[in-house]
């Protein structure tokens, strides 16, 4: 029992909560977030297979290639190498579900793969079930229609991040005018779906607390999660009929955009959305540094935002600023622009981030000795600071273990009383 969380520790918002994690790539980060807040998260991997173990980036180790996606999103979890064919293991799984406060599932309803609807209703009567799928569940997913079906939907062709980003409308906005849509790095729809999955889990717990312990099912659609990111484009279409297209390398107005530096790129927003002062500061900066062409930008018409939105102004500014920015490093541009209250940032490489003085000052990277990777590595800590309940520091996910009698101790009620 030494691995059980300390039941007397009230210092975490979810320290009384057990989470069963039955997720794929769209839901696994949700479990990590709940673990960050102190939940006991048990990830169940049937036959030791983790469906996210092959997701890029992969790094070579003495044990073969290891997914750093899997390492990151399984941080803080316990892993059960569950053997469905082993006598007694289905019962152990049932005990585990009975002990759960939250069950996170993805791809489809997972519990219905093993039990009938009625059995699941009994096993998970007190659990908040959060089902994270690419496009959401059917209207009556838990099979109340009386046809005896389990409600589990057959798996269609595998849906991945690119498909969800396309169906969620964000892919259309990224990329280049000539090359077409290019997806954002890193599987953003997975993270989006998981963040709202974790939100739904905590909301569900609060509702359960208020409703005398009755469980419920929450349906999280990754498509809808990504559709939160459409910015002004949905409202623009609704109010004007205009369909926003991808901007590509061409900014919407002079003063905004990604520009080359001597050692990479910088990103800037100056002159829009109430940053008129930043435009003035930007022109002054160029003047103070004797930038060629700055006299053009000092002409009166450039003071008008509408003028700066014209294609000619965008091109002229890009020419003048590019000549200025390519002669300076990212760090120089960052420092000088920020000193003048201009919103300019370097386009960081991953290496830049690891030596970023602000992140280092705030101890954003925590050294984790992860046996699966064979060396100590700086893991990002949870991205929130909480004065009364500091989130847990990252701990590597355990190696999967087949025998986990320690997993199923206690029902939710007993644990709540104990805590």
């Amino acid at each position, binding site marked *: 029992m030494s691995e059980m969380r300390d039941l007397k520790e009230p210092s975490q*918002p979810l320290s009384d909560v057990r989470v069963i994690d039955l997720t794929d790539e769209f839901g696994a980060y949700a479990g990590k977030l709940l673990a960050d807040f102190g939940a006991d998260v048990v990830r169940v991997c049937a036959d030791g297979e983790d469906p996210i173990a092959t997701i890029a980036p992969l790094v070579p180790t003495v044990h073969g290639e290891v997914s*750093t996606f899997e390492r990151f999103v399984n941080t803080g979890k316990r892993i059960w190498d569950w053997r469905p064919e082993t006598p007694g293991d289905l019962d152990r799984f049932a005990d585990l579900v009975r002990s759960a406060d939250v069950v996170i599932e993805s791809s489809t309803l997972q519990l219905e793969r093993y039990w009938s609807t009625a059995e699941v209703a009994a096993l998970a009567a007190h659990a908040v079930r959060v089902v994270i799928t690419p*496009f959401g569940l059917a209207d009556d997913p838990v099979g109340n229609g009386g046809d005896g079906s389990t409600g589990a939907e057959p798996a269609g062709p*595998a849906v991945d991040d*690119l*498909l969800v980003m*396309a169906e969620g*409308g964000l*892919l*259309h*906005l*990224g990329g*280049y005018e000539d090359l*077409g*849509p290019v*997806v954002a*790095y*890193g599987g*953003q729809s997975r993270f989006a779906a998981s*963040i*709202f999955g974790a*939100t739904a889990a*905590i*909301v569900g*717990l*609060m*509702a359960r607390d208020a409703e005398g312990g009755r469980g*419920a099912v*929450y*349906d999280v659609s990754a498509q*809808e999660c990504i*559709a*939160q990111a*459409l910015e002004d*484009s949905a409202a*623009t*279409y*609704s*109010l*004007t009929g205009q369909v*926003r297209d991808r901007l590509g*390398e061409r900014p919407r107005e002079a003063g*905004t955009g990604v520009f080359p530096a001597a050692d990479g790129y910088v*990103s800037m927003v100056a002159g829009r*959305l109430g940053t008129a002062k930043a435009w003035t500061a930007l022109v002054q900066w160029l003047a103070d540094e004797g930038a060629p062409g700055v006299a053009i930008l000092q002409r009166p018409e450039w003071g008008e935002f509408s003028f700066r939105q014209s294609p000619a102004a965008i091109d002229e500014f890009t020419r003048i600023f590019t000549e200025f920015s390519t002669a300076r490093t990212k760090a120089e541009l960052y420092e000088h622009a920020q000193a003048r209250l201009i919103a300019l*940032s*370097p*386009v*960081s490489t*991953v*290496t830049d981030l*690891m030596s970023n003085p*602000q992140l280092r000052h*705030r101890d954003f990277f925590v050294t984790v000795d992860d046996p699966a*990777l064979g060396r100590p590595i700086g893991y990002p800590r949870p*991205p*929130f*600071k*909480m*004065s009364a309940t500091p989130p847990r520091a990252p701990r590597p996910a355990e190696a999967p273990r087949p025998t986990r009698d320690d997993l199923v101790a206690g029902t939710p009620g007993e644990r709540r009383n104990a805590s």
Partner: protein
Amino acid sequence: MISTPGPLNGIRILDFCWIGAGALVTKTLAELGAVVYRVESRTHPDNLRLAPPYRPGTEGLEGSGYFASRNPSKHSVALNMATPEGRTIAARLAAQADVVASNFRPGVMARWGLSYDEVRAQNPDVVYLTMPMQGETGPHASYIGFGSTIAALAGLVGLSRATGRTPVGTGTHYPDHVPNPGHALVAVLAALRHRARTGQGQHVELAQLESTVSMIGPALIAAGAGQEPEPQGNRVDHAAPHGAYRCADGQWVVVECAESAHWRGLLRAFEADGERVDPRFVTHAGRKAHEDALDEWVAAQCERMSRAELLHRLRAAGVPSAAVKTSQDMVEDAELWARGFWQEIEHPVIGTMPISRTPFRRVGAPRPELVRPPLLGEHTFEVLEQELGFSRAECELLAHEKVAY
């Protein structure tokens, strides 16, 4: 008062979240049942109230569709925070709020006498959310940015590019829309649950840089293990083709072949004679090794058909595929309407427009009914009367003196 039935009923939020990321946090909290008092002022309006889109012919502080999309189900309380009286009223509201939320630069709330320590002195169990760009401590704590520059600083833009081209990221201020409101929401809800269990409030700080860097966490660990990731564009190791392709009507589709059955289906969809297709494309390894040529061939095939026809054929052939949906596609998506993702609201200045709900639902329960976004100061008198016991005459005087303004 606007109160949506939900698990946060009884929670009152004093909301200083302007523009982007923070406004989505309090939008969701309102949908979950909290009462949100959004503090703003005619003397210093939220910049989002001045941001397009506008329906043609409707401009001004009440006309922004962008503002509307982020602020349904909230109350608007007009307080001129440049006045001592305005700050005093805000402090009194903060003293009885469950949550005080802001996303200003570090120092702004303190200048108004609303730092965490000051609010906590009057309201010990408050949950106090701040969303500074880089955190409230550290050498870059005072630096400024927008969603797009935060995405750049956080490494997401640099990894989101085509080979040899300027990095473009998502083409939006993405951190404002999902990573930062999302992480803040999870943390505030956790803090509220902790408070419900223990009575203890706290300061929740969501540094937007750290939140956005977390979205590429696996890349950082890979770099730590000696493998700095490279931009991949739309490509992945396990599938080819795996990308976006233009159709005859100028629309785009995504096509993916992870399995040989998908590839065979693709050939059927294109009515391509397997015997005459480039022999380099027969195996997955061959398609990966010659992916530029493969993409060129797939693109040429896709350009022969409209998006609708191509998708029909791809689906019939079992090929993983999707429309690259535009904003028009999204707003007109029957499935999203059927699921209740969109709700049409009626606004006195803007007219009707769809607003998206929080992207999850409780099975068996209706989704929260959104209330149209508030006009600036629409609820000022009501809130001052009900929360602080002001008389109508006092409210009118405060408005006349441009305090409640």
